[in-house]
């Protein structure tokens, strides 16, 4: 027998409370997990956006000789490379000259349509990397041969190994055309490579650098354009926030324009900007959910831990009576909390590991992408939950070690004696500041009344969560009144017994009541957000990945489990604390089924009332914080629709009712029966 051995046996003593605390601790780690999911989703989305973009192209017209071409490339590299190097490839030179006309092919004279079509002669340094050869082999040395897209060749009636001769339209009859042999036919490696796509590409012959400048010198085409293209590096872009890349692109563009090097075209900025707008709109509910879960889970862990200690207080006080020092008693308690914490952490790490292995980019892909201030707050809060939980455990252990064996009171008696301080209706006054906070979040979000960004990311999160918490605190006292009034309608002994318990239930069980309503409110808000997204898939575009839905679903489940844990444990402990009460009623001749019915009335009233109020508050939060966002006429995110709200609220209500009724039934089955009589008598 040792301190740890004793701790292990105490842990095993009341398994329901130990299991409840372990679940609460696992839940407490969920906000951090949600952030990782969001981070991973953001990274994946950015990679997709980058891959779809052609990146940045700097081009300049009328470059007809090698020296000018090289100078242009050098100037572009000097301006762009230092700014975009981490986020793009090193850049590739290319050039296009034209228009030409096909003079002849080895297969014979071209058809009139082909002969009248404009032809371009191009050079692209990275052609080999952008195409897949279908016939022949891409020329790998400067031998004057060419290649072209299979689709284009088919359109022009050109076959592999044909020799194609071109000349400028203004060339005099009899002038020597420029001829090249087509040694490879290919197709673009990616359909997104707009420059090579068959449907839109002009009739284009790709040759090597030497041959290109050769044809320029010989034929003197009307146009000769040089360019340098920087393609986004998906992983590099995904590793940072899109805004960082946008800023660099803007810098590079400004520098090139200031130095009159050439013109800049970029799809990257627009794509990233569109994505950022969509992400902020769609991911805001996830961040809000994450931050809203913080007070809920902190209180949940604290409350369940307190219940856990309460059940073992008598034994801990006995150890003190046997001469154990406070620190040794604290170590027994902390060893139990530590064990449960380790179990919870182990489960969370296992889940995290599984998720990390499946995440894009592996575990490194989970590291937050250049977190915004809002994300930083959420991260700090999420990481802070376990820290605060640990501090709570230490405080509880200290408190438990100070309890004296002869001074432990019956918890329900203690509740009955301390009714007055919790009964204050001053809570109702909180409705005003709560409403103001939520309204300000609404106004800031719609940007109708306040300048954009007045509250900012951090402010919006904190204001909304503070408003919700205050609203829950404000409505709790009124809930007791409603519960009592609803109980008065019930006749019979069972109804009367239930009414006794329902009187000031929400004050006597203030912590449990707060947790229950807040959890249902968060669940309802999350369900509305999720239903809105599911019912309006077009609103999110194709940019945002499925992690958004997964995160909201996980958050919804987390809130529902938190509510059920609170509900189940609160009634389990209340029933246990009422052993004497129930014993007295059973020996009065009240049948056990009637006693169970009275508890069922109490449970159902609390569940329905908590659910109704929670759902209503969740809807309020959805109204104030879920906004529709449009960009360039396209809807990126929808405000909650009537259908989405009904579906979300319905899902929260049905899930909460079904799970709550099951939990309540289990509690009644385990707690109430004639065995209480023997138990009650043994306590005398």
């Amino acid at each position: 027998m040792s301190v740890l051995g004793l701790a292990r046996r105490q842990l095993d003593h009341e398994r329901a409370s130990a299991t409840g605390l372990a679940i609460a601790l696992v839940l407490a780690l969920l906000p951090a997990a949600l952030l990782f999911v969001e981070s991973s989703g953001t990274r994946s989305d950015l990679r997709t956006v980058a891959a779809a973009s052609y990146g940045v192209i700097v081009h300049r017209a009328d470059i007809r000789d090698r020296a000018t071409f090289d100078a242009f490339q050098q100037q572009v590299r000097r301006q762009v490379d230092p700014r975009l190097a981490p986020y793009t490839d090193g850049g590739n030179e290319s050039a296009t000259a034209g228009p030409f006309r096909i003079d002849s092919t080895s297969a014979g004279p071209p058809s009139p349509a082909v002969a009248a079509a404009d032809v371009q002669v191009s050079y692209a340094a990275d052609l080999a990397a952008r195409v897949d050869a279908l016939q022949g082999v891409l020329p790998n040395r400067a031998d004057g041969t060419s290649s072209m897209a299979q689709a284009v060749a088919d359109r022009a009636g050109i076959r592999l190994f044909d020799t194609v001769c071109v000349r400028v339209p203004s060339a005099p009859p009899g002038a020597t055309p420029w001829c090249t042999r087509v040694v490879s036919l290919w197709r673009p490696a990616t359909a997104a490579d707009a420059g090579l796509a068959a449907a839109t590409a002009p009739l284009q012959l790709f040759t090597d650098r030497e041959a290109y400048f050769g044809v320029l010198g010989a034929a003197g085409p009307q146009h000769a354009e040089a360019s340098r293209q920087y393609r986004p590096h998906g992983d590099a872009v995904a590793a940072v926030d899109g805004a960082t890349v946008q800023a660099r692109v803007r810098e590079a563009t400004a520098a090139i324009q200031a130095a009159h090097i050439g013109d800049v075209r970029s799809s990257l900025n627009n794509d990233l900007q569109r994505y950022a707008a969509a992400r902020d709109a769609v991911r805001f509910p996830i961040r809000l959910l994450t931050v809203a879960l913080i007070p809920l889970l902190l209180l949940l862990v604290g409350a369940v831990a307190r219940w856990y200690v309460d059940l073992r207080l008598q034994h801990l006080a006995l150890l003190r009576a046997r001469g154990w020092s406070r620190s040794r008693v604290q170590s027994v308690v902390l060893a139990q909390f530590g064990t449960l914490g380790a179990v919870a952490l182990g489960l969370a790490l296992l889940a995290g590991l599984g998720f990390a292995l499946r995440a894009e980019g592996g575990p490194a892909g989970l590291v937050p992408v250049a977190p915004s201030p809002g994300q930083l707050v959420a991260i700090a809060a999420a990481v802070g939950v376990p820290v605060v939980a640990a501090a709570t455990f230490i405080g509880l252990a200290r408190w438990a070690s100070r309890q004296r064996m002869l001074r432990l009171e019956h918890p329900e008696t203690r509740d009955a004696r301390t009714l007055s301080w919790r009964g204050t209706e001053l809570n109702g006054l909180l409705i005003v500041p709560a409403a103001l906070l939520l309204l300000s979040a609404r106004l800031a979000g719609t940007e109708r009344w306040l300048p954009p960004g007045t509250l900012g990311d951090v402010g919006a999160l904190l204001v909304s969560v503070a408003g919700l918490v205050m609203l829950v605190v404000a409505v709790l006292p009124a809930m007791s009144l409603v519960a009592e009034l609803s109980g008065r309608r019930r006749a019979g002994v069972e109804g009367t017994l239930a009414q006794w318990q329902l009187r000031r239930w929400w004050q006597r069980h203030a912590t449990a009541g707060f947790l229950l309503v807040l959890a249902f409110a968060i669940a309802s808000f999350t369900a509305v957000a999720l239903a809105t997204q599911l019912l309006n898939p077009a609103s999110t575009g194709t940019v945002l990945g499925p992690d958004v839905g997964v995160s909201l679903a996980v958050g919804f489940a987390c809130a529902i489990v938190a509510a059920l844990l609170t509900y189940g444990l609160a009634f389990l402990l209340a029933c246990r604390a009422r052993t004497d009460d129930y014993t007295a009623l059973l020996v009065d001749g009240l049948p056990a089924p009637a006693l169970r019915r009275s508890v069922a009335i109490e449970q159902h009233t609390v569940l329905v009332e908590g659910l109704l109020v929670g759902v209503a508050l969740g809807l309020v939060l959805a109204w104030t914080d879920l906004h529709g966002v449009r960009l360039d006429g396209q809807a990126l995110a929808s405000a909650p629709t009537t259908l989405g709200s009904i579906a979300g609220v319905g899902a929260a209500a049905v899930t909460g009712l079904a799970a709550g009724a099951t939990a309540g039934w289990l509690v009644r089955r385990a707690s109430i029966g004639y065995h209480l009589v023997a138990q009650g008598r043994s306590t005398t």
Partner: protein
Amino acid sequence: MSAVASRSNEKVLVNVRRLTHVYNTPTDELIALRELNLQLIETERIAIVGPSGSGKTTLLNILAALEAPSDGTASVAGLDLAAMSDGERDEYRRREVGYALQRVELGTLPRLTALQNVQVPMIGVIGSARRRRDQAMELLAAVGLSQRLDRLPAELGFGERRRLALAVALANHPRLLLADEVTAGLDDEAADQLLADLNTLLRELETSAIIVAHGRHLPRHVDRIVPLPYPRPVAAAPRARRDGTRGRDAQPSRRTVLVADSVSRWLPTPEGPVEVVRGVSFHVREGEMVAILGMSGVGKSTLLGLCAGLDEVDAGRITLMGQELARLRGAAREALLQHDLSMVMGVRPPVQATAEESVAIAARIAGTPREEANRLARVALAATGLADQATAPLGRLSGGEQARVAVARALIRFPKLIIADEPTAQLDILTSTDIVELLREAADSGIAVLLATHSAVLAEIADRVLVMRNGTLQELRR
């Protein structure tokens, strides 16, 4: 107080001077100890005897440093118990004193085996786990539990749990053992054997002891006996009323309400079924108050549970109002138990209700309409002296007032029989006397009352006293 032993020429271990302790209740101050003087020399073993409420447990709590005295001084081994720091108090509890609590279940940890329970106090005192285990095994062998090392407390017999509590208290070989009601619930032979074993062990360990115990063999096992009289005089009124009722008890016309005829009940234990109630026969008539007197664990509650229809007999029969309980089933049984029987226990009525609501619900369970139940509740509360507290939440009432509410709940149904199972548990003797007097008045009004108590003082208020030992009943001749 005169319970002083002057031992000036020997080393004094315990020195109690003018010790007074007062409990503050919501309505009153209860004096548990008044100016007690007591000395105990090294290796001396004394027994403290006295009626319930005389402060025996309070004295032990103070000497165990679990309570601070209201006035006076108490020192053990030169340590002033009231002046110790937290650390010194811990050290004192660890090494100097061992305490076997009256309620055995509070003194052991239910999930630990006997061997583990004895080792718990050694943690922090004896470094070696092996030594802790060896010492615990030696102690358990010394108290006769060498065959029960791996049993949980709940798996031990009542006497064995007492022995385990002593082994736990002696785990660190303290200089002073405090043992509260160490022989409670044991018959004379078992008590004698336990005290003899304890005495041998104490001599071996050279440990002094203050033992609260009863029994005719007690003087053989202690150096001296210190009587602890009740700190306040007990009201004398009950005696006159009791004398009056005895005359009525003799009236043959009164109907017999409850008859127990050769009733036996076996309960399961790890060692197999044990006969807790052994062929018990008795009866209770209208207007009669019968007390069953016995220590905890002798089978009183089991017997009363059988009489109240909360449990079934294994042999014999119980007849209530002429109907055999075992043959009654369903609604008929429910109706009989709801209308003709009320039970008062040491448990509290529902605390979330007011006193009036709590009493009224007892009537409504028996089928009384709501309004009538409320009216009767006010009458019952007035009869039990709680008219002013009718609208007070029960949680705010004192223990004595809650016990009165419990009696009012029993009276409101106008039962033929009230069964009261230790209705005054954890109440002081004066309050307990008041509560039992209420039951006495109920009996005087014609209700049959069956009272189970471990207090001889309270039992004396009854018309007849049946002493219960080892599951058997014997009428006390007065």
